């Protein structure tokens, strides 16, 4: 094979591979990326039920209840401005507690209840999710 043809074929293969990868990545991004909302953002955004959403905020004090089956809990996530009721089935992380930061992945159902698939709590005492810190700061300064 001539050097030029070889370079051309290789180049074409490379371009084809990159285009295919980009298409794959884009389509996967479009379907699978979950947007991050605080309760205030979510209230404004009129979210489609069923869309993948990541919800972040604080677990409202006194809102945590356990359903009779022993493995499902309900609580309210708040950022000081708005709040969202959440249902979760599973073992909550050790650091999950009322008044503490939480990030929940899941989706809204038709009634406005947030059904969480996974729950992440802050990792140690010194840390609050930056997004939550930002949102709480915003709503505090609004309150003033």
């Amino acid at each position: 094979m001539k050097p030029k043809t070889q370079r051309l074929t290789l180049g074409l293969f490379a371009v084809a591979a990159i285009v295919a990868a980009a298409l794959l990545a884009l389509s996967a991004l479009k379907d699978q990326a979950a947007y991050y909302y605080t309760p205030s953002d979510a209230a404004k955004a009129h979210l489609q039920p069923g869309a993948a959403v990541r919800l972040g905020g604080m677990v409202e004090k006194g809102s945590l209840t356990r359903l009779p089956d022993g493995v499902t809990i309900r609580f309210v996530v708040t950022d000081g401005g708005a709040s969202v009721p959440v249902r979760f089935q599973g073992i909550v992380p050790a650091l999950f507690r009322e008044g503490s930061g939480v990030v929940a992945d899941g989706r809204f159902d038709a009634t406005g209840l947030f059904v969480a698939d996974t729950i992440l709590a802050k990792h140690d005492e010194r840390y609050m999710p930056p997004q939550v810190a930002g949102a709480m700061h915003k709503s505090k300064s609004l309150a003033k």
Partner: protein
Amino acid sequence: MIAEAGLAALWLGAALCALQLFAAAIAVRGESELAAIVRPVAVAQAALTATAFALLIWLFVRVDLSVLLVAQNDYSLKPFLYRFAATWGNHEGSMLMWVTILGLAGAAVAMFERKLETRTLLATLGGQAVIGLGFYAFLLFASNPFARLDPPPAEGQGLNPLLQDPGLAFHPPTLYLGYVGLSVAFSFAIGALVTRDVGPAFAKAMRPWVLGAWIFLTIGITAGSYWAYYELGWGGWWFWDPVENASLMPWLAATALLHSATVLATRDGLRAWTLMLAVVAFSMSMIGTFLVRSGILTSVHAFAVDPRRGTFLLVLLFLYIGGALALFGARVGTVREGSRFDLVSREAGLVANNLLLSVILGVVLIGTLYPLIAEALGVKISIGPPYFNLAAGVPALVLVTVMAAGPLLRWRRDDGRMLLRRVAPAATVALLALILVTLFAPPIGLLPLLGLALAAGLALASIAPLWRRNLLRTPLFTWGMVLAHLGVAVSLAGVACDSSFTVEKLVAARIGETVAIGPYQVRFAGLDPVFGEDWQALQATLEARRGSGGALILNPQARTFWAPPTETSETAIHTALDGQLYTVLGKQAGEGRWQLRLWWKPFVTLIWAGGALIAIGGALALVGRVRRRHRPAREGW
């Protein structure tokens, strides 16, 4: 005094690093007596940082609370292993380990590299010093590990309990050896670009260094994955967490580099591309360091919350990656084109390997950085496993297909029909596996199904290069390749089995109740308080029975640590030949019940067994290469 001695050693190391750069820069230009001092200076520099690091370890083991870092991260009641490992369980200590390994890697090159042309070697050590200076500056000006605290507190604040595990002693050092070891490949590329000396001899000199870093990276990732699996108690082994991706990306680039360096060493092809990959591989390490250490991510790995540190690292990142790419751009035109090859040939197979690895690297990089960039623009987005599984999984399966055929190809030119005949047995096995799984296994997703079939085919294809060879006379690096490729097949089979056949159960159980999970009957036999050196826990006793066999006892715990006060759950795992029974004790569920989460994970252990095989394969190849270097070269290796 120890802390001051450590700081002094660090400053001296930084000064020697500057001297190393200066001497190398002068010596590269022409004959100079400074050439003679570059190697010894590199070794002395490493000795000084290693001393500083050893002194920091000493401070941690002795729990010297007058040192700020120790007071913040250590606790006198912790067992020796955790006081020792707590040295790098924090930002400053882990950055000092980073710089120490960087220095040691440079010293190793200075002491053991004998094949590389002298000027290129000098330029390489100069490159290593450039990287070193930036990170010394980061340590000394933004992350001083030896800062004092006056007055000292009565007790330290302790280590994050999630990190209190033997894994902390091994996972970060091995991962860093790999991460930072790739700096050698980067410096080699810089050296070669400076002296314009890129050819088979260069590739042969660079390859063992890349291989060494890659082995450690493989071990670090595999061990980290297993650590996350049993420590977090979520039943998963890979979460596509940005921090995990930060270790995967250099591995992908280094894997591509290993293969392209082989083309350069054997056939003098892919010159510019190999240099590019060497730059990319360590750039990925630095991006990873930035992601993990800048505090931009919130995870168990992110210790720093000081924004100045993030900015400092970002500036270093731009300087080094930008500088290397600029040098590459300026010099690549003068790197002569390598030799050519046919479209059906070993080279072409390796080019396909490189393209696919780059594609996977690209989608992982996009998925990791996109949320950060979007957030900087005011959009908050999270990209999770569904994206990565699809966007990285599909090219990975194509890669596995290429991998099966690659080693069966001849260099330079091969015959397509002969190739088909050679891969026919593997293709048949893959097809058989596909049919058997579809017929007899419970219905599973398309990707795992293809994964299982391809794993079977790859397993056979990867041992095919040993067919009809005298096994005792087969070179070690051929054995290495065979084992590493087999390891990929084994891992892939584990991943596919875990994702398709895992059974999970979440229950609220009373003491005495029995739960069925997979082939096991698990009885919740009791719940007792237990105490450790710096924690107390509730411990469940679970009796697992399989068929008519005797009872296995599993003891998952819900632990409470005292310093800092934290709750963690300790999983209890039983490993059988055909999988693992994974149990977690949850919270109290009311009415005398306790939450139990149980998984039956068939063949999940194959994932890490495969990782171990890959690392062993790498080690065999390394030994083979190094031994061959000390003998007169034969053609064709």
